[in-house]
């Protein structure tokens, strides 16, 4: 199991658990960060933080502090990776 903030760019992962509590947990759930959700790590900000994730079709930026509270499993399933063929080059 990984923490979301340690997942490299371009990867797809599946949410396993949330460690957040209180309002932050509510906010995460409201954004659709529920167990089993597939999310894509899109890019990192100019200093490596925050990171943009594709969460159910929306681009959401999370700081390291928040993304480290999300436990994920990496997907080996190639079916999942078909969906996007765009390379998010980091320029």
């Amino acid at each position, binding site marked *: 199991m990984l923490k979301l903030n340690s997942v490299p760019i371009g990867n797809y992962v599946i949410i396993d658990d949330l460690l957040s509590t209180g309002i*932050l947990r*509510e906010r995460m*759930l409201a954004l*659709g960060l*529920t167990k089993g959700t597939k999310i894509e790590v899109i890019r990192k900000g100019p200093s490596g933080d925050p990171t943009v994730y594709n969460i159910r079709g929306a681009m959401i930026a999370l*700081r390291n502090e928040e993304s480290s509270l999300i436990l994920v499993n990496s997907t080996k399933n190639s079916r999942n990776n078909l969906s996007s063929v*765009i390379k998010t080059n*980091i*320029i």
Partner: protein
Amino acid sequence: MGLTFQSTKNNSLSDLLRIEKEEDQCIIALAGNPNTGKSTVFNALTGLHQHTGNWPGKTVVNARGIFTHNGKDNILVDLPGTYSLFASSIEEEVARDFICFGNSDAVIVVTDATCLERNLNLVYQIMEITNNVVLCINLIDEAKKKNIIIDASGIENELGIPVVLCAARSGLGIKKLKETVYNVTIGKITPIPKILIYKDYIEKKIKPIQTLIEEKINYINSRWLALRFIDGDIKLIDLLSSNIDNESLKELLKTVSSSISYKDKINIRDDILNDIYKKAEEISCKYVKEDKSKINKDRLIDNYITSRIFGIPLMLLTLAIIFWITIAGANVPSSIIADLLFSIQDKLTLLFNNINAPKWLHGILILGLYRTMAWVISVMLPPMAIFFPLFTILEDLGYLPRVAFNLDHLFKKACAHGKQCLTMCMGFGCNAAGIISCRIIESPRERLIAILTNNLVPCNGRFPTLIAISSIFLVAKGSNNPSFLPALAITVLVVIGILITLLVSYILSKTILKGIPSSFTLELPPYRVPQIGRVLYTSIIDRTIFVIFRAIVVAAPAGAIIWILSNIYIGNLNIIGHVAAFLDPFSKLIGLDGFILMAFILGLPANEIVLPVLLMCYLSTGSLIEFESIESLKKILLDHGWTYLTALNTMLFSLLHWPCATTLLTIKKETGSLKWTALSALIPTSIAIVVCFITTIIFKSLNLG
């Protein structure tokens, strides 16, 4: 007695949320996620008949408007944009309370066609509260561009509520939306929401509670309320406690606590959302067809806009270009307007002479009031009419969240809230508006920091001063080509403002407002082509005219007063001269002169008038220079001993000095504290004085000044 007491209590909550209406009017609530184009739908439905206000007792702004369909008036109430109704923020609370306890006849839920899955969560939550829900899937034009096809009738069957596809920007589907809402309110369409059945253990738990609620409370959906009892919405239970009698509440809570532990509550909330999202996924899978091979343009743009290397430089370049366009474009219209207004002044003077009006009357009305007004309009109107639309276009494009994203690491280091960058950007428009927008920051500590530092970025009232001074001093003499230098100078100034914002935020969070930054999530909405028509309308009518009007209202009387003061002599110096002489020694220390400082002080009601007031002061004391062109501005300033240091420090002082009166009043209102209001004036002012003092010393020691 008990009964009366109870009923008054009962009334309090619904009174608070009840929107006044006439007999045959309907009230329609407009709900939706942020960034779904909710306000565009609102405008498309109501046209321009709207007004804004605060929610009773809450610091959340709402807009209301009226639209008429088939002769029936509907009051449309814009609810704050929320992701959920579980009341984890004030906005969510307001939206939930209004849908629950307000007197709406129907709810329109606006969703984003390009992000339907996420949006369906809110739809399901609202469907649990009320039956009369209409789903408006907006932005189908954008979906089409992204090769997303939506099967509306499929979703309609799946949800049991009417679904309307809309592209509110072009008005597509708005008529059908009106018709559908009308049909729902008159009962021609009866939506029967197919609400979710949750996991067995949840359903088992809510059964007894639901039965109990049905007996006691008849105005809220019993299933929904039972769910909130078991997933532990404490705030809602508090709210209810004033609405049902104590005995019933006790009985309810007893039933709840006997079957549910705290740990359960968290699991239940998780499971409820899991189920909702599973269903949302299923629907979007079945009825939303997306061609994923199509290149996602947003991401390609983001590769540059939010890139590690280009992100911040691009941002600064954009800012500089906006200033450059403003400066270059404002020059000609400025002189045309000035020529026109001052030729009218000549005619008015002639008229006054012809009717033998007393000299003092001509002085006050023409030389004081009219001339200041003419200055304000000719110096301020053109830059504003160019700058505002450009800035609004950036807003509409979806650029501001990217700015927040790019700068977030800096704000994090300053221990400030991530959204402070957004409130700071609002401050570029108007600091008072920026301070109101600080409401989006929930943590009181970080909100205060954002409020206290908002004034450190120049607002629209100050930009014209900066633009005028930098173009006067940084354009080569005789050159007609607007150079890039003034634009660059203003950009640098803005960067200085941002750096000082960060520095002050940091110092505040380490001293009087100690704490660590709280969590936040930032959505980067898709890029959207701005609606030029609406941009022009809102930025010209709403902003430009409003700001210029405010400036005129303040400047005109100020002009009259200054004329009077400059024509009353004590000894052989007029009053203005005395005041300036009094302020002069201190002003000289910080590289200004007494008149400049006085102009800033007189400019307290509105920053816009600082430069016009200064010119009035100069003109009233020296030999009266007739205004010929914008060029003469430079002559006036140079004649009064302006150097590069004076120009620099006037700009720095303008950037950093105390907030205008409107902003101060807003701070007082928002913080409710005189102490913070005073600090919000003291902090920038002392920074302004220190910075100007330092530049003066540097200039003096290098013999540049």
